[in-house]
């Protein structure tokens, strides 16, 4: 009977362990599966086509080139590998410049025929029309099946998912925004965090420590939206005034809020590492006539180095994955940041803000999943490096 019960418990433990692992695995697979569709999604909006003159040697355009053409940044075909020929951009609404409303028909029934005629007549044309207005015998090149290239995502310098006709899913501004904000956060929080950890582990009296430690641990439990709120009400106006900025919602505001949020992690982990320095080691140093400060920087900190590094990396991990607080204070402009005093947008903030409005299965939706994958890979690298650093401690 007892044996049976033990087997039962063993089985239950095994099942719960496997279910957890499988769930995690499924989430990761789901993430990558959704994201993988990105490179099969068309470069132009769903349900539309781009058409060129059939004599135009250009048969393909990248997503970014299309955007630049429609923004007027590229005005000649030779810039995209074609002949010397000015580009003539024509949208559906522009058709009225070439034809009268009577010619297009009362119910626009003549548009397919006229669009075909227009494309054939103008060598430099680029025509953007809904699928339904393209005649079966359309006289021109159709850019319909062109899909997004990896370079458009990984090397893309613009994130503009609502751009028409070609949405921009460039990773760089978001990735750089994330790294920029996190780097700022870690530069602010690391010196401060280590200083507090040294104070708590080595200098403070027992009473001060017993008071401060729970307070710092409490900081870790405050919901991030509250930090965001604090940042928005206090830090953002402060930065705006101090640096005379047009807006206070900047990367620096995000860095400061994240630094405050990462502090508890850094302090706790670094302090634990320093308290784990054997008493014998400190006594040996003091017994040789070293002062307390000499002992701290010659013995305690070098001995706790791997723990302190773990603290830093975990702090970065916290900063990179943080969503809400950053979303609230960074201004969310998806441009590549040049200074910390510009609005930036991070990967998690983008996912949180945009997933609600992206249609399921569409390019935008898949691009957001791809961002999720990037974030997952970054945090995985961080966890692996923490493992690596802390395992090094024992082989020393």
């Amino acid at each position, binding site marked *: 009977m007892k044996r049976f019960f033990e087997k039962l418990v063993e089985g239950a433990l095994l099942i719960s362990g496997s279910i957890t692992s499988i769930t995690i695995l499924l989430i990761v697979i789901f993430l990558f599966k959704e994201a993988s569709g990105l490179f099969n999604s068309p470069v132009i909006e769903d349900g539309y086509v781009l058409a060129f003159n059939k004599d135009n040697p250009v048969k393909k355009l990248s997503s970014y080139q299309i955007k630049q053409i429609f923004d007027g940044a590229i005005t000649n075909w030779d810039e995209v590998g074609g002949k010397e020929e000015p580009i003539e951009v024509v949208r559906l609404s522009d058709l009225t410049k070439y034809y009268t409303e009577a010619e297009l028909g009362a119910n626009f029934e003549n548009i397919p025929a006229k669009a075909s005629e227009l494309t054939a007549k103008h060598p430099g044309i680029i025509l953007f029309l809904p699928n339904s207005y393209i005649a079966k015998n359309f006289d021109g090149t159709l850019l319909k099946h062109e899909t997004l290239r990896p370079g458009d995502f990984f090397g893309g310098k613009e994130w503009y998912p609502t751009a028409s006709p070609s949405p921009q899913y460039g990773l760089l501004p978001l990735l750089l925004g994330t790294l920029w904000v996190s780097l700022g956060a870690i530069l602010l929080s690391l010196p401060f965090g280590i200083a507090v950890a040294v104070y708590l582990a080595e200098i403070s009296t027992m009473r001060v420590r017993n008071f401060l430690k729970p307070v710092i641990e409490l900081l870790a439990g405050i919901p991030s939206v509250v930090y965001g709120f604090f940042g928005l009400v206090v830090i953002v106006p402060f930065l705006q005034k101090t640096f005379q900025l047009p807006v206070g919602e900047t990367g620096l505001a995000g860095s400061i809020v994240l630094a405050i949020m990462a502090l508890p992690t850094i302090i706790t982990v670094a302090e634990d590492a320093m308290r784990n320095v054997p008493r014998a080691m400190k006594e*040996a140093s003091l017994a*040789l*006539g070293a002062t307390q400060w000499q002992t701290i920087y010659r013995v305690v900190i070098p001995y706790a180095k791997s723990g302190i590094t773990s603290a830093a990396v975990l702090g970065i991990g916290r900063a990179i994955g943080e969503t809400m607080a950053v979303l609230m204070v960074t201004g969310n402009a998806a441009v590549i940041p040049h200074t910390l005093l510009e609005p930036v947008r991070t990967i998690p903030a983008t996912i949180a803000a945009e997933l609600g409005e992206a249609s399921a299965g569409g390019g935008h939706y898949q691009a957001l999943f791809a961002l999720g994958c990037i974030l997952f890979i970054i945090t995985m690298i961080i966890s692996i490096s923490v493992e690596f650093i802390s395992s090094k401690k024992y082989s020393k």
Partner: protein
Amino acid sequence: MTSDIRHKKMLTIDAKNVDFYYSEFHALKNINIEVEKNKVVALIGPSGCGKSTFLRLLNRMNDLIDGTRMTGSVLIEGKDIYAPNIHVDELRKEVGMVFQKPNPFPKSIFENVAYGLRVNGIKDKTFIEERVIESIKSAALWNEVKDKLNKSAFALSGGQQQRLCIARALAISPKVLLMDEPASALDPISTSKIEELIYELKKDYTIMIVTHNMQQASRVSDKTAYFYLGEMIEYDDTIKIFTNPTELSTQNYITGRFG
């Protein structure tokens, strides 16, 4: 008080009426002990009798423990080490200490020995090098480590590590060397090496050693103090303590009837 008429000859260690408390616990009761230069004194007694506590009073290591209190005075070479104008770190340079377990720093062998010099602000490379080599030689470790001074100290055996710790303590040329059961964590061969070393070091240093090993006390020391329950029961020449102790308690302890 340093010009006490009875002491024409300067004592290296002179503890008078020392009482010591851990919070409420009265750990040392009216200890008086005098040690002359270049003598080895062994402190013996059962665990918890206060001998390590007394040893740690001599370089003020007990200052590190919260809630401790001391009365009485401890003079080292005539200086009251508990006087307000004494800097603890300066004192500890004069009174070196070797701990029960070898505790080298996670640094190279060379850097371990150089540590005391470096925290003393000595920057002269040749001086440091000479002093390190000299100290390692004094600790009878030179032949074993001369080819691997840059290797980690953790690569050494326990006995070698302990001699390295002794070398480290010697490097800053202390006047007194305190040893808190320096051989208790070591095998018999390493122990005998440490004992030979103590015999050699006596020529240059005044040594106070805590030990649980009666034979060790009788082999290495000139004088022995027997502690019991925070009191110093008897303090006399080692030969007298081990052959003809005055107190019954001492006799019971050294003959192994308790403790």
